[in-house]
């Protein structure tokens, strides 16, 4: 999908756009299996702060061969700046690391990374159960503000994201996985977001293995059997390709009418096409039978929109959207359970949407289904944790697809610029986040919703 504005401000109109102070999106650095840097950048990484977390992350980076600096040098170019706040007791503890980031920020390269590491703040409900010191929680909450504001200030395709420790130490395997994901080009369109690690579960993975691809035994999804619904086109087809690239054997599901596109998509990745309607009562049975072996990964991607203002909403539009977008997922997860069709450590990732977080005009039905998915993932987390798996949701923002191509030109241009990265994401950006959450390395992240929206202003 072409973004003419992005091409122009990176070409002939660069000077004019700068003078006028127009949004200046840059082409994002995206992961490629052929990249000799494996999706990382060569410049040094600054690790600010002197906490146990800072020590742990610096150690991981050094072991992985990154050039690491522990003090900000204003003249230095940095590929990433990491600020560790773990253990902060009061908001006063946030100052040093934050100002160190500020000192180094002008040295951040194009498509660089700012990453925070901090303790997860308690919600009111959590604090009611387990009382927490207000000053301590103010410090933890403060990091949210720092990170989100920093993300708004990022320029030239750089992103800022945080890792939250929720009852685990910085050595938890999924902290490392989150670090590689956020450093890597795989997280190109994720900004202003937190990844919460709340268990020690998860396979320990190195930076190089996180970037391994194809039939390499080290690849993040090597040997895993993955099912993707709505696989024929768009985001679904991108998910299929990225899961295969990361080593999975992929089974794509789509309605029989999409069969020709589904066959083409699945043949491209040497996968298998399953023509089935996921809203059919026996959909899970059909899929389990067609796969014929334990399912390690299930990506609930299939979704539809039937937009109508609430005043004009009808039962058909309501029930079809809820039926496809959330009810089918609930039924399929349960039925696969009954059938004993899951693998040893099953990972489920469901497609939510920023509409499910912020709501959207004309989308009460769609937003209900997508907010429902977010609730479903949170509630099902425990049962998946018990079998060493995980269930998470990914909420895409404005993604360049056939669907958004149909938007009116001006609306589309505005929608693209409404994020900190000032551009739409690509289907593969969503797919990268899904592949990460579907990996054993990320098993310590469970029941969460990760937005892939370039820090869209909507529903922040």
């Amino acid at each position, binding site marked *: 999908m072409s973004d003419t504005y992005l091409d122009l401000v990176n070409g002939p109109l660069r000077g004019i756009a700068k003078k006028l102070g127009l949004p200046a999106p840059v082409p994002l650095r995206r992961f490629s299996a052929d990249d000799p840097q494996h999706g990382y950048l060569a410049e040094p990484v600054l690790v600010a702060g002197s906490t146990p977390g800072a020590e742990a992350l610096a150690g991981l980076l050094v072991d992985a061969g990154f050039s690491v600096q522990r003090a900000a040098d204003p003249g230095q170019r940095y590929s990433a700046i990491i600020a560790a706040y773990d253990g902060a007791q009061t908001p006063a503890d946030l100052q040093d690391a934050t100002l160190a980031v500020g000192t180094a920020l002008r040295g951040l390269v194009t498509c660089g990374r700012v990453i925070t590491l901090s303790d997860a703040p308690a919600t009111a409900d959590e604090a009611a159960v387990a009382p927490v010191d207000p000053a301590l929680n103010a410090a933890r909450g403060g990091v949210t503000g720092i990170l989100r504001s920093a993300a708004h200030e990022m320029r030239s395709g750089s992103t800022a994201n945080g890792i939250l420790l929720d009852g685990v130490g910085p050595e938890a395997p999924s902290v490392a996985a989150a670090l590689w994901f956020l450093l890597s080009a795989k997280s190109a369109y994720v900004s202003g977001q937190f990844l919460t690690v709340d268990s020690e579960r998860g396979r320990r993975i190195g930076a190089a293995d996180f970037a391994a691809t194809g039939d390499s035994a080290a690849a993040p999804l090597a040997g895993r059997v993955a099912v993707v619904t709505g696989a024929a086109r768009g985001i679904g087809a991108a998910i299929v390709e990225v899961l295969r690239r990361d080593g999975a*054997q992929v*089974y794509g599901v789509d309605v*029989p*009418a*999409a*069969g*020709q596109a*589904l*066959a*083409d998509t*699945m*043949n*491209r*990745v*040497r*996968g*298998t*096409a*399953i*023509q*089935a*309607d996921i809203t*059919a009562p026996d959909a899970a049975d*059909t899929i389990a039978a*067609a796969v*014929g*072996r334990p399912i390690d990964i299930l990506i609930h991607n299939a979704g539809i929109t039937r937009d109508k203002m609430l005043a004009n909403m009808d039962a058909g539009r309501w029930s079809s959207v809820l039926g496809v977008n959330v009810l089918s997922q609930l039924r399929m997860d349960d039925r696969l359970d009954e059938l004993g069709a899951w693998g040893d450590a099953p990972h489920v990732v469901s497609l939510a949407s920023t509409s499910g977080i912020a709501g959207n005009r004309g989308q009460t039905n769609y937003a209900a289904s997508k907010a429902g998915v977010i609730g479903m993932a949170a509630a099902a987390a425990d049962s998946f944790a018990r079998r060493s798996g995980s269930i998470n949701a990914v909420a895409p923002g404005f993604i360049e697809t056939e669907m958004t191509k149909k938007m009116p030109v001006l609306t589309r241009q505005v929608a693209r610029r409404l994020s900190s990265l000032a551009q739409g994401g690509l289907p593969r950006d969503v797919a990268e986040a899904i592949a990460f959450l579907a990996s054993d390395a990320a098993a310590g992240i469970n029941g969460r919703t990760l937005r892939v929206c370039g820090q869209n202003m909507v529903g922040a």
Partner: protein
Amino acid sequence: MTRRALILGGNRTPFARSNKEYSHASERDLLTAALDGLAARYGLAGERIGEVAGGAVIKHPRDINLTREAVLGSAFAPTTPAYDVGMACATGLEAILGISNKIRLGQLESGIGGGADSTSDAPLVLGDNARTALLDAMRAKTAAQKLKAFARLRPADLAPQGPGAGEQRTGKSMGEHQAMTTLEWGISRQAQDELAALSHQRAGKAWDEGFFADLVTPFLGVSRDTNLRPDSTVEKLGKLSPVFGTKLDGEATMTAGNSTPLTDGASAVLLGSDEWAAEHGLTPLAQIVDAEAAAVDFVSGAEGLLMAPAYAVPRLLARNGLTFADFDVVEIHEAFAATVLCHLAAWESEEYCRERLGLDGPLGSIDRDRLNPLGSSLAAGHPFAATGGRIVAQVAKYLHATGKQRALISICAAGGEGLAAIVEAAK
């Protein structure tokens, strides 16, 4: 113990009535689509298959290597060998049988049999007058000789000729031939329309139940067979005028409703040995057990053009020590409703079975509930070379899905030929 030739699955395009949705798709496009859908259904993209056999009845001269060209355009490995087969409407079944025999012999571990036909993207040729004149002109050494050859050309000679369903030796169309047989056997209009309506109703029900979801991959926006009329009834069919046999000395009973229309489409059936199936994690649906071909002397008028399966089936049953009662399913290709009904009548006739088939008595009747349980060509349509693959794949799935044991397949073909095969559950 001899090796088994397992039917592991199949795929076809939806069949579309001629000169409609597939007008600009070549037979190569159609066969490639059938192969691609098959590769995707069984996760075989990039796989080298032992051999692919296929063909087309109405074939372009350029398509001497139709099947190999389709393989090269498909998701299968370009190192997959292929060859073309031709036996008129029995082409697809013959292709499948050839592959299955090679598997049983141990020459192949895997193979695909199928076919494609398009009467929309049909070859047009010059008539013999124009063709010989142009060839002579090409061979001519002098200008005078060239002029002489060209002088033989008449404007009318330059009109291209399309493919005909006419028999070369009788000049009669297939429908006219069948009309004679229909009259001979006294098959009523009512009986033909009943069979046609039932075919549509059964096929429609199977589609609605999703039976074809793993047998058909959509093509060019078509997701279902376009000839299908699930709401077809005897009353509606009764309103159509006869199109064949109108000049014969007797009631004309064959209409567009109880005859198959010209159709475009392609099919492919995946076959393999037990070892190959296990290696690829594929569930055997059924196996091909035996087959018999027959041909009749229709030129002299001694037998009806499409009656050869009447001879093939008893020989096949005798060799295998089986009777109709041993079959849970009987698939008789519905070239015309009357073709099926003439066969049923012939096998029930003591006189015919004794005198023509050399049997001691009638071969027997076929339980109508077991006959074409998913409908047949009257509903699905009949892209000639694709019909065999359609029948074999759906009957194999039907046996597997229902737990039934044995099926008989019978297909009539131009040139007075016929082919019958036995398919059994893989167990």
